[in-house]
């Protein structure tokens, strides 16, 4: 194998409580560059809290997050995104007053995107349309020109991914990007994730849809009541007794 790769994301002892409720309890893991890691667990196990803590939308009570030796904990979200660690939102709220391609102007306007400015110069509109095409908005059907509020959920989820891509990310944290989508919509999104994987982007996927997740994930961690109860390759994790008990009553459907 190649020499010992340094983990691109290191999470150490992350903990967070809300009032009396412990959302995360000393969660730690390492993520290598280019890996796709799934985060699964029953409802309320702290998955979205984990996303918020990593990407700066919440401050942890204790613990640290490192991205390539840089400490992320304590930084505001826009700075974390500026470093290349991006996220999608579980509940997509598009900019109501903007058209789909205009929504991408926002991340393209950011300092990070400007550092990576392409040869198209100042024409962000064109870059935006290209980006949308990359995530599957059919240019000929003029889908990019529709108002974001008029698009179906499948497109909105891709818009979220496009938003991240506009920042030339090194890490994308997808918060339940498959939720609410139909089987065919998910089927058409999987190739996109795979493409990103092949480009070398590190992806963390919080998901409920296990069958689809297993198609792309290199490894999994399982959370339950804020604790990490298992970590490893999908097959071995799903055999784990603790994991089965956590999902007791739920059909895993492998």
């Amino acid at each position, binding site marked *: 194998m190649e020499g010992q790769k340094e983990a691109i994301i290191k999470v150490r002892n992350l903990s967070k409580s809300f009032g009396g409720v412990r959302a995360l309890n000393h969660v730690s893991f390492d993520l290598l560059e280019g890996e796709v890691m799934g985060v699964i667990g029953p409802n309320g196990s702290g998955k979205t809290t984990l996303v918020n803590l990593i990407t700066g939308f919440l401050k942890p009570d204790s613990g640290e997050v490192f991205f390539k030796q840089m400490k992320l904990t304590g930084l505001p979200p826009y700075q974390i995104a500026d470093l290349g660690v991006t996220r999608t939102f579980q509940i997509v709220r598009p900019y109501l007053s903007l058209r789909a391609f205009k929504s991408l102007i926002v991340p393209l306007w950011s300092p990070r*995107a400007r550092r990576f400015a392409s040869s198209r110069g100042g024409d962000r509109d064109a870059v935006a349309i290209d980006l949308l095409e990359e995530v599957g908005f059919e240019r000929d059907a003029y889908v990019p020109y529709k108002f974001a509020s008029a698009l179906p959920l499948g497109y909105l989820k891709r818009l979220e991914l496009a938003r991240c891509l506009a920042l030339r990310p090194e890490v994308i944290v997808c918060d339940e990007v498959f939720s609410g989508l139909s089987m065919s919509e998910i089927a058409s999104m999987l190739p996109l994730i795979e493409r990103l994987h092949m480009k070398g982007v590190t992806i963390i996927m919080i998901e409920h849809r296990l069958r689809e997740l297993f198609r792309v994930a290199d490894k999994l961690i399982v959370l339950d009541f804020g604790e990490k109860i298992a970590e490893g390759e999908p097959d071995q994790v799903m055999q784990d007794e603790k994991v089965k008990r956590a999902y007791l009553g739920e059909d895993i459907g492998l």
Partner: protein
Amino acid sequence: MNREERRKERLDRGIKARTEGLYAISSWREVGYLLAPRAGLIIGLLLLPLVVPGLYWQRVLGLAGVYAMLALSFDFLAGRVGLVCIGGAFMIGVGGYISGGLNYYLKLPVALTIPIGTFGGALLCTLLWLPCLPLRGIYFAVVTFMFPFLVSSIILAGGLLGSTEGLSPIAGFSNIWIGVYLIISLLLLAIFGLRRLCGEDIGVVFASVKDNDQAVLASGINITRVKIYALFLATSIGCFAGAFLTHFSGFAGISLFAVDFSIMPIAACIMGGPGTMAGPVLGAFILAPLSEFLRGFGQLRVVLYCLVLVAFILFKPEGLLSWVARKYHQIERWVKV
């Protein structure tokens, strides 16, 4: 059944080939159709000082211009960036006192005091309101509303800057028409400039901050910095109005912080058409002269303002300009079914 039923039919007038905001123009007549109302309003505004009878009404026009600038600034911040700032009086006071003070104490000429008052005031206002920016909508509004009261009570309590009598005399414009046309032309410039700005990329960022600031944060943008840009722009407009006012009226006093300057622009904005930027200006030019007309009725005019304001908020929140524009583009009529 022998009942006649009616329904409202809406016919599009003018250009048939159009969609949300975009028009396919195919003739000069259609260009005229689009330009006419806009040109009409602009030309009307420019001609207004010429047709107005007498010095008194010229003064009213100048005052209307001041209110219009405030209404514009409010509409820009609230409608395009999502920052509801009810501190109009603060901007007028700061711009006015800086400008007036420079002229009164240092004898600087008007050509210098107004720019310094405008941008220096904007700097001051932005810096002072900086810590308030992270606040949620309603609290930001309340805080900005309180600032003029705080400063005016400091001035009164400390006996600073002329206290209750204010500073006077302050140099004015050599000809009242210079003053009136100065503010009107700058007003038109501001409307065009702001609308243009909102069409640029940064305008898109403003709109996104208003719609969903979490997503903007996740896009790697420091929203506080974006809000600062917008705030500086808006306070420049407001402080200019203040600087203009002191020279126009030859006086700088506590009245610059009057609550009128915070409330009237909101009324003008809501009445004229929030979000359109030209609407609030229209509203100001209607309300200001109206309030002069009603001066004879004493306090009744305030009562009337308020009732009109409430009526508009409750029943016609889209405002006059949007309403007129809608009527212009569509004819409604009752048609038998």
